[in-house]
């Protein structure tokens, strides 16, 4: 699966669509950035409510390819700029972390039920 496959998912709004060719193979759901750093797999999608610059910094260090911000949290401009600079896709959704995680899991495993 590629990052670009995340852009046409119902309910997920694409905020910045950089490096759409990057591969994704896993997801990680956490609002603790130290936990993300310790445990997020390479080539993963991060599901979080932490809508700020440092989330991008952490994501870049551990090869997270896309970030999905839940609960429609406002995304500051400097976060968008950082995501573009680092080649990380930014998405936003009204849904909570649990529902978003389930949806991503289905996309990754091809399970449509």
């Amino acid at each position, binding site marked *: 699966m590629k990052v670009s496959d995340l852009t046409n998912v119902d309910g997920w709004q694409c905020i910045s669509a950089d490096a759409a060719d990057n591969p994704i193979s896993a997801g990680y759901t956490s*609002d*603790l*950035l*130290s*936990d993300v*750093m*310790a*445990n997020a797999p*390479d080539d993963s999608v991060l599901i*979080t409510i*932490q809508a*700020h*610059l*440092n*989330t991008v*910094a*952490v994501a*870049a*260090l*551990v*090869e997270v390819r896309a970030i999905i911000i839940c609960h429609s949290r406002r995304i500051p401009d*400097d976060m968008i700029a950082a995501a573009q600079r680092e080649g990380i896709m930014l998405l936003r959704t009204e849904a909570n972390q649990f529902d978003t995680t389930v949806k991503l899991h289905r996309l990754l495993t091809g399970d449509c039920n």
Partner: protein
Amino acid sequence: MKALPVNPDQSPLVVLDLLFKLKIKDVMTAEVITVQRTDSLRKVQHLMRDSRISGVPVSENRRLFGIISIDDIIRALDAGHINDPVDRHMSVNVVVLEEDMPLSFGISYFDKFKFGRFPVLNHNNQLVGILSSRDVSTTLLLELLKEYRKIEEQLPHHAPQSAGPISQRFRINRYDFENAGKAAQAIKKILIKRNVPSARIRCAAVAAYEMEINQVVHSIGGNLSYVIDDDKIELFAIDDGPGIANVDQALEEGYTTANEWIKSLGFGAGMGLTNIRRVADEFSIRSTLGSGTRVHAVVRLKDSNGSATDKTR
């Protein structure tokens, strides 16, 4: 005091650029030796001798009252009033610099006034440092060295993959979340260029980032330095305080002293030091309450026996 050998009208562009880019606070000595108004000139004389300095600000609770120079001491010895309190003989019309001024401004002061040093105040008029011509020349030399390296890297010839040891130091400020991660990013870039296995890069970058965040969140400010050679990266995080009361407790996963604001940003989960310890091949921490904390970590850049060992998993 001789003028600095930096002429803002006739220096190469790279120097001019640095003079405007660097702020006084990047260059000054932040640990200022001060005396109080009631201290005797004799005490100042000994302090100057022991610390090899030629001027001391008179300050209490970071408020600046005056400055005593070695000339004042010589005069006091001559006139026999060396046991008088400082405030009777200090200069009260002190020329000061502000921490956010560009360095070019500081250099013009060394030309304009014949003083060897200028106290530095923040915008609340608190004494935060002192700028001597020595601070200026050492910082400029270091910065020029960095610029020189950059130019060297851009040269078209094939640079060897490991070009010997590289080191750099980053200043880290309290609550400056915006710049946290600069060191980790720089380290990652270098290691990618040196073809270090990605699992090792991740360990090094995580250790550096946690060190940066620790200083941003818990310290009043500090420095992060790295030294990269062929086999390993060594990280030193040295802060200016306030120090950790119980280091063993701080090393327990989940223990934190962070406030709610920090936690709302996703930090302060009590995982920082344990994360560093887990990714590092060598780890040590030393802390003194009231003076500061020093964290040292080494991450090896080669997989042992050629097999990939990712300690973060």
